[in-house]
């Protein structure tokens, strides 16, 4: 965190001054470790064992916050009798189909909801795509998780004794995640591990809370979603959710990544985490809503119809009416995985014509840079918008493949357009940070020369396309022509970001179809076309006609929660699910941790924050069993967006790789999985291609050619792929060169010399880096043998115009294997070889890689077996 988020880290240092204990768990010793009370080095890719070990410790030692766990989580809820866990099936959950590498999640459901199972969760694979990329995976669900059919009425055993209750399932599941297993898999000593367990549990309860903070590298694994689930289980067991000082904080790689999922740049969701409709399943809005929510579940997702209708009204205005399903048919539909990596493979297969790159640098920043660059060479056109002529804009004349002679500039047909972009100080708009807080930034200076904002570009592009289509009578052009697109300001060609924010907030629709008063809350949204709003969770950001995100009242002039600084969704709540900060009777768990509570006299919830609960819902309120929607939320159901009102220790629906986290080794690993016969995630998305080979793992033939683990990361001095730092002399001089970090022991083993060069090789590429020999990287003893790790910052690239520094790109080393839920690449744990000296000349690098591939006997099948047959399966 100090390394990548030094400004945010000031608050950690402030907490430390006040006595907080800082524990840092990371394969390398970073600037964070330097000021932490304890640094725990573990093997990259082994985190679920570490976290699972903590869960086991909490359960075995009975350290969980029992009152919280019983009332607020699904610990007491019973799971179906036919659910079988990984401990019984040697690393598989029940429902696995080895043919397709997918699960039928029916048996993971809660007991008593069998009759709803037919409604189904997982979408059928569509037929029009190649076998290994067509799984729609997490595209199925919005943030609602999945539909919780029947969850308004679950079967619970609040004594937590029933062997089918979630807590007992958890106990059995994590029983094998012992301190000895942690030592064996992670390379962490039992003493270090237990001291973390003791610190975390001692610092949780009525009077204390523990926070977990992760950076997005945690998600970049073939089991990335389950990493975060593991942390969620710990926090729920310890009562650290919905309470001040608790929670799980995701530190993002860019300034507004939270914003770009709220109002998504992702292919599979619409604004406000509504799922993207699909070609196969959603002919109309009724069919769509049936897969978004259910009339037999609790909570606010049952109002998804109002959110969807309001979204459509904001986009298509007067044209969207009840007669035409509010133009639902205008929405683009997905037919499978259209994620970034699938798109790249489709480019390579000549199925993609054009590509927009805005504020990204995939030639350097995305996994498998070679596939990225070669993919782009198959495009007809490419638009790059950035501050600088980054490598993704110039690969066609100076990229590694052009340098090596593999590509010839004159043979590349891609037409590349570069449009200079304005920076955040050169335009109005909002950032949404990880606390879900929107902060408005005012334009301070005009952008230089031709640089323009993204908003300017998109608005004018829309205007131009619409002008061209103006005379069209083709139905397919209606969605563009009927779009509300009036963001202009008189006397200027710059569109108004303020108008966009107003549209996002939403308004009452006047009888004549024009915008009426602005909405102040999403609870005002209707499904009858009388309201419009571009993102339901953002409704209220323009409450009372005031841009609430532009508020900057100093902290000294308001309460410690600081509700008048910016605006947080939903409804300016600073902590989600904060009903959990009070006990089941509505009293603060302790005075020290008082946050929101039930005011008996006033008959309402009150406190320091906006209560995240129906304001007048008494703690002892119990709905008629089976009552759906917000009315079904009991007075002790803090998790009001969950279909049963409870925090999910066990996810009965919504995930594709299991209801609980299980440890699987990364696609490339130095060891066999000691926990199960199943080596790697049996549902991971493998891309079997000649240009995407994997190194052999563990004891497989050829694994000895790639004996080391490597991981990639960022340095304080640079920003991601370098577009915002390698062009700046003052930053570049601070970290001028690509380097690799190795331990003195590995340096001795391989003859690496501090300051000299080394070459790092995988089945994808070979790159050269200067060597930094450091005690900050330690060899670990894993499964009885020494495992060396190589650390690689990934900020450098070759090419680009005007970069102050350049170098080989660490991401060229990484192959594409994806998490099934969200298609994120496994970029943080893989294997490599490292040798002293520089790599061969550009035109000989492929030869070196090919030698490794043939020596190790690698084929497209290597490492890509989904189901490993164990003794018991």
């Amino acid at each position: 965190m100090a390394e990548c988020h030094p400004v945010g880290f000031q608050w950690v240092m402030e907490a430390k001054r006040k006595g907080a204990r800082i524990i840092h768990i990371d394969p390398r010793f970073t600037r964070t470790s330097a000021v932490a009370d304890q640094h725990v080095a573990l093997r990259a890719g082994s985190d679920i064992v570490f976290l699972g070990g903590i869960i086991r410790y909490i359960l075995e030692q009975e350290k969980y916050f029992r009152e919280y766990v019983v009332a607020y989580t699904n610990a007491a809820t019973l799971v179906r009798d036919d659910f079988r866990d990984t401990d019984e099936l040697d690393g598989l959950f029940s429902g696995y189909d080895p043919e397709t590498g997918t699960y039928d999640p029916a048996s993971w459901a809660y007991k008593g909801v069998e009759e709803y199972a037919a409604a189904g969760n997982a979408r059928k694979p569509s037929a029009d795509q190649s076998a290994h990329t067509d799984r729609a995976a997490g595209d199925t669900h919005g943030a609602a998780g999945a539909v919780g059919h029947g969850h308004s009425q679950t079967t619970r055993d609040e004594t937590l004794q029933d062997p089918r209750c979630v807590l007992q399932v958890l106990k059995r599941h994590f029983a094998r995640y012992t301190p000895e297993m942690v030592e064996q898999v992670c390379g962490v000593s039992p003493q270090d591990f237990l001291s973390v367990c003791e610190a975390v549990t001692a610092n949780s309860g009525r009077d204390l809370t523990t926070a977990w903070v992760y950076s997005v590298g945690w998600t970049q694994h073939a089991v990335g979603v389950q990493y975060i689930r593991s942390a969620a289980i710990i926090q729920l067991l310890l009562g650290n959710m919905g309470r001040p000082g608790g929670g799980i904080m995701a530190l993002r790689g860019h300034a507004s990544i939270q914003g770009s999922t709220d109002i998504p740049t992702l292919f599979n969701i619409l604004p406000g985490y509504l799922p993207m409709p699909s070609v196969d399943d959603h002919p109309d809005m009724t069919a769509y809503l049936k897969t978004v929510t259910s009339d037999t579940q609790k909570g606010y997702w049952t109002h998804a119809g109002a959110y969807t209708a309001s979204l459509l009204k904001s986009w298509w205005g007067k044209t969207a009416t009840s007669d035409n399903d509010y133009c639902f048919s205008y929405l683009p539909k997905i037919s499978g995985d259209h994620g970034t990596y699938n798109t790249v493979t489709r480019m390579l297969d000549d199925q993609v014509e054009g590509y927009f790159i805005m504020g990204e640098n995939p030639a350097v920043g995305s996994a498998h840079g070679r596939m990225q660059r070669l993919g782009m060479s198959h495009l007809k056109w490419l638009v790059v918008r950035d501050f600088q002529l980054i490598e993704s804009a110039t690969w066609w004349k100076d990229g590694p493949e052009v340098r090596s002679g593999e590509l010839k500039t004159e043979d590349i047909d891609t037409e590349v357009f570069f449009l200079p972009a304005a920076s955040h100080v050169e335009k109005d708009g909002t950032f949404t940070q990880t606390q879900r807080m929107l902060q408005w930034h005012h334009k301070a200076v005009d952008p230089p020369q031709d640089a323009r904002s993204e908003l300017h570009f998109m608005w004018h592009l829309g205007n131009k396309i619409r002008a061209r289509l103006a005379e069209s009578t083709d139905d397919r052009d209606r969605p563009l022509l009927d779009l509300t697109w009036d963001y202009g300001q008189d006397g200027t060609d710059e569109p108004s970001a303020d108008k966009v924010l107003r549209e996002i907030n939403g308004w009452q629709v006047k009888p004549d179809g024009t915008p009426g008063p602005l909405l102040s809350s999403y609870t005002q949204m209707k499904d009858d076309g009388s309201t419009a709003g571009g993102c339901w969770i953002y409704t209220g950001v323009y409450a009372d006609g005031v841009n609430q995100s532009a508020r900057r009242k100093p902290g000294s002039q308001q309460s410690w929660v600081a509700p008048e600084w910016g605006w947080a969704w939903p409804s300016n709540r600073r902590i989600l699910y904060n009903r959990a900060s009070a006990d089941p009777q509505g009293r603060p768990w302790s005075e020290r941790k008082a946050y929101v509570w039930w005011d008996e006299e006033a008959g309402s919830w009150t406190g320091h924050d906006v209560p995240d609960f129906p304001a007048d819902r008494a703690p002892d309120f119990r709905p008629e069993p089976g009552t759906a929607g917000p009315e079904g939320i009991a007075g002790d159901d803090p998790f009001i967006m969950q279909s049963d009102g409870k925090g999910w220790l066990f996810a009965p629906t919504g995930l594709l790789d299991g209801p609980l986290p299980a440890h699987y080794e990364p696609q490339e690993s130095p060891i066999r999985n000691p926990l199960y016969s199943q080596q790697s995630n049996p549902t991971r998305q493998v891309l079997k291609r000649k240009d995407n080979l994997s190194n052999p793992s563990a004891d497989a033939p050829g694994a000895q050619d790639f004996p080391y683990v490597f991981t990639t990361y960022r340095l304080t001095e640079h920003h991601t792929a370098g577009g915002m730092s390698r062009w700046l002399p003052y930053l570049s001089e601070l970290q001028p060169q690509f380097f690799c970090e190795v331990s003195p022991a590995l340096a001795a083993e391989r003859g690496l010399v501090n300051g000299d060069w080394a070459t790092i090789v995988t089945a994808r590429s070979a790159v050269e880096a200067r060597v930094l020999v450091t005690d900050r990287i330690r060899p670990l003893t894993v499964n009885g043998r020494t495992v060396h790790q190589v650390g690689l910052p990934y900020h450098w690239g070759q090419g680009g115009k005007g970069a102050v520094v350049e170098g080989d790109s660490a991401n060229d080393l990484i192959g594409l294997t994806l998490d099934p839920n969200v298609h994120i690449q496994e970029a943080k744990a893989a294997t490599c070889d490292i040798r002293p000296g520089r790599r061969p000349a550009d035109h000989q690098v492929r030869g070196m890689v090919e030698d490794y591939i043939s020596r190790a006997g690698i084929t497209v099948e290597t490492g890509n077996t989904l189901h490993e047959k164990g003794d018991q399966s």
Partner: protein
Amino acid sequence: MSSHSLFGPLDPAVDAGWEQAPGRKGFLTDTSVCIGCKACEVACKEWNAIPSDLGDGITGESYDNTSALGANTWRHVAFVEQSTPPAPAAPPAVDLGMPTLRAPDADAKPEFRWLMSSDVCKHCTHAACLDVCPTGSLFRTEFGTVVVQDDICNGCGYCVPACPYGVIERRAEAPGDKTKNAGIAQKCTLCYDRISDGDLPACAKACPTESIMFGDVDELRERGQQRVAELQEQGVTGARMYGDDPHDGVGGTGAMFLLLDEPEVYGMPPDPVVTTRDLPRMWKRAGLAAAGLAAGAALSLLGGS
């Protein structure tokens, strides 16, 4: 307090003849909260328009690619990777009447440390650079800081060997480039232009963890000493102040440091002495010698007549 003294405690601004000086200003750099982000280095360069200094790739010295203070580096963050056990406890600095130290908790002690510290010109009470400057380019400001006037400096370079910390340096001319102020002596001004307007120095403003503090030297000294006591109390036995003693060889410094180990570990001299300290004595001796020589010569002339 003697006037125009070359060592010992004094108020340098008053000593330099400022009437109604606003009080001595300086830095306290608390390295115990430094996270090595180098924001100070960048902010300093941005504000003072210092040329970039892209070297020959990485230095191989941990994450430090700047290496030392110099003409183009007025703030420098040192990165010290320390695998050996921490140094023995610091000698008791100033007795604040705090409770006695408890034994350090062996479990809480990291066996490996990565020390970071942002170094800067010390703005000495007795600044040899200033004392030896023949042009008056280096002067003592009303804040008690030491500043080079680059339009007066003639580049003689006397100040460079005079500095006991190796801070001040003449700017080399980059080949094929129009270097600003080439040949002119360069160092931290403690952002004279900013503090004159009531702003924080650029480095202190940019520091996210308040490792770099700016303020009245007396207050900072006290704050630092309290923090040392606090850290000692927590078992950080190596914590100590550096530059806070008005009786040291430079009369104490305007830029003080809270270090976690011996100064040498961070590349700082353990016992700096103003190089002009012995000047009066030297002049006296030289004078005596000259007088003796003159007398001898006279005698010889007399004797020869």
